[in-house]
């Protein structure tokens, strides 16, 4: 008899549970009452891509949704490649990507096709200086040139008291600890930008192609920025590269730019980006940038990750167009860039770039 009573209780029990769950929104959501709703936009905007942008996207979502109660923005941090692919297939209304749409794999053409024949919009939205981080007891400041960084990561310079390092750091008391270079084991935009920097600024000391996958076999590695930082922290004599905002209490090396050594700064990265040439053969709405890794301006910092937002100029649905326009306009606005800087440690765009991007985003319209 006991059995049947339990069985009988199960169905209503589940029903009650479902009702109870569906009845309540989260404690901090008060959008249900409708009286205080602000902003003219409503609906759901779905995008995704670069996982490096995730923190910044969090800040942008929060800012945009606060101003527009009835809007929900979703961003899947599935990775740049998948993001671009999903944008082309129409799964995402906008995408975030650590590299611009490439021409050699026909991506740009496909994206143009997806956008009804008009060139897709690409605006730099998230610029993050990459720091060369190290963990070496007794050494608080370190100065390195790009060729030397290349030799260290290539395994040519193996101890910290190597004369090549000592030459650039006359004041440091360098121990004879073995250098353990740490690279990213995953495919990442950070690695791609780091190797691009070594290739272009390394004066021939870096003989590998630039790639999102670390091109050298062997050596210590970590998965993702967090894994790499953890690995650098775990050993003595380690050196790696990571988003400057995640360096934490690790030592950060100053890189040789022109005749001075510069620590990574948001201003330095924004400055280099503003001075860098555009990728050739692109539409004016496509702000793909070839970062000038050999910039020599005072205070410049040419080692950084530039992540783009990709969208169409026109959308079939008016609500999509309004949402994308509204969201992207917020992202590239001064307010949006500052929000990302506070939350994700990114470098706000230089005002000239920012205004150009805002002008491009403003053109988004429904068909």
């Amino acid at each position, binding site marked *: 008899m006991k059995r049947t009573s339990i069985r009988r209780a199960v169905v209503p029990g589940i029903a009650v549970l479902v009702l109870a769950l569906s009845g309540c929104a989260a404690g901090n*959501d008060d959008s249900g009452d409708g009286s205080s709703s602000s902003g003219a936009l409503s609906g759901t905007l779905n995008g995704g891509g670069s996982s490096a942008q995730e923190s910044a996207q969090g800040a942008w979502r929060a800012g945009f949704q606060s101003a527009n109660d009835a809007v929900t923005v*979703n961003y899947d941090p599935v990775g740049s490649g998948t993001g671009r692919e999903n944008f082309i297939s129409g799964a995402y209304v906008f995408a975030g990507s650590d590299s611009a749409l490439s021409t050699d794999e026909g991506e740009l053409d496909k994206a143009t096709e997806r956008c009804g024949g008009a060139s897709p919009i690409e605006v730099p939205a998230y610029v993050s200086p990459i720091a060369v981080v190290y963990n070496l007891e007794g050494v608080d400041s370190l100065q390195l040139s790009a060729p030397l960084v290349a030799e260290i990561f290539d395994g040519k310079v193996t101890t910290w008291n190597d004369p090549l390092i000592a030459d650039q750091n006359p004041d440091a008391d360098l121990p004879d600890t073995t250098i353990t270079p740490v690279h990213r084991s995953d495919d990442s935009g950070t690695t791609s930008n780091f190797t691009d920097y070594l290739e272009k600024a390394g004066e021939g000391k870096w003989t590998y192609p630039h790639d999102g996958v670390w091109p050298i076999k062997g050596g210590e590695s970590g998965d993702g920025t967090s894994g790499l930082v953890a690995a650098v922290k775990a050993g003595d004599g380690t050196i790696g590269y990571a988003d400057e905002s995640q360096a934490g209490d690790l030592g950060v090396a100053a890189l040789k730019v022109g005749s001075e050594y510069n620590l990574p700064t948001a201003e330095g990265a924004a400055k280099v980006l503003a001075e860098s040439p555009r990728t050739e053969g692109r539409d004016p709405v496509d702000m793909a940038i070839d970062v000038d890794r050999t910039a020599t301006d005072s205070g410049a910092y040419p080692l950084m990750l530039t992540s783009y937002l990709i969208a169409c100029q026109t959308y079939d649905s008016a609500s999509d167009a309004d949402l994308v326009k509204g969201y992207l306009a917020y992202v590239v606005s001064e307010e949006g860039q500052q929000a990302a800087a506070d939350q994700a440690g990114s470098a706000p765009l230089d005002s000239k770039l920012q205004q150009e991007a805002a002008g491009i985003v403003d053109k988004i319209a429904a068909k």
Partner: protein
Amino acid sequence: MSATELAVQDVNASLRLAQPKLPRWAPALVGVLAVAAAGLPALLLGWGVVPWLILAGVVFLVALPLWSLAVENRRAAVDRLMTSLVWTTFGIAMIPLIWLIWTVVKNGASVISVEFLTYDMRNIIGPGGGIYHALLGTLLVTGAAALISVPVGLFAAIYLVEYGKGSRLATWVTFLVDVMTGIPSIVAGLFALALFVLIFGPEIRLGFGGSVALSLLMIPVVVRSTEEMLRLVPDDLREASYALGVPKWRTITKVVLPTSLGGIITGVMLAVARVIGETAPLLVVAGKTDSVNLNLFSERMTTLPVYIYYQFTQPGIAPAGTGGEAPGIARAWGAALVLIAIVMVLNLIARIVGKIYAPKKG
């Protein structure tokens, strides 16, 4: 077979009626002596606690069986050795278990609060926020996955054990279930996504897709464990039931299943535990959102593991100058603790239900 073998072996032993036996306190004595003996070199050579204990364990494992061999007989010595080994494995294995659980509790407990459990991450910048959306997402997605895979897995196992013996279909199912254990979870996610994209078009992202992906991972565990448990039900029970004129399907539901219920529940709970922590397939097909979504069949849904993963890998930045951790780290530990607690509670409920339904053993 075993009985005859034993009998032959034991002929000699049983002739002597009273065998010498070690006293009850022998293991304790050897244990104390082993720790003391290992302490000597440990102190002399300045070892840490860990090598000391390792050496003590080894000394104990050698000394007790040797003593037993000298006083008792070979079989008793082997028995002593195996008993010590079983206890040792237990002791060693408990170390990482407790260490791990303690780590999670230590880091997670301070985060848990009413706010943490009832807030979502919508419009949260910096610290604060909660896991409400991910909590509901996990319950719904995993629940739906269990709803799919438990019946399918259970019936498939019943087919394999009760109906399909020797048939070609059964052989194939058995093989393929084994192979299914080797599907990388992300492949299951990509497959589910491809399936739903094929039906609904490229924009589709839905919580139920995650359930489908998870059930691909769950089914083999359910089938395999249930199959083994059903096989262990003695045929005598089935035959007794048939002899009473009970139809086969009533025999299965009333005799076979209740007899093996405990094991089946363990298997199902293992399967749930296996998938409730999955990240990658859910991100691919169910996406990620900051807001609460209770509809499995439309729009994105966040689950706890996805939440944990992105709070860890994208923790935001630590408050300047404090040297503290980024706000995401604490949220992630808290969410991990909640996730473990959920599985623990589910496990407990399943066990209680199992107790109620299980046949009384006389």
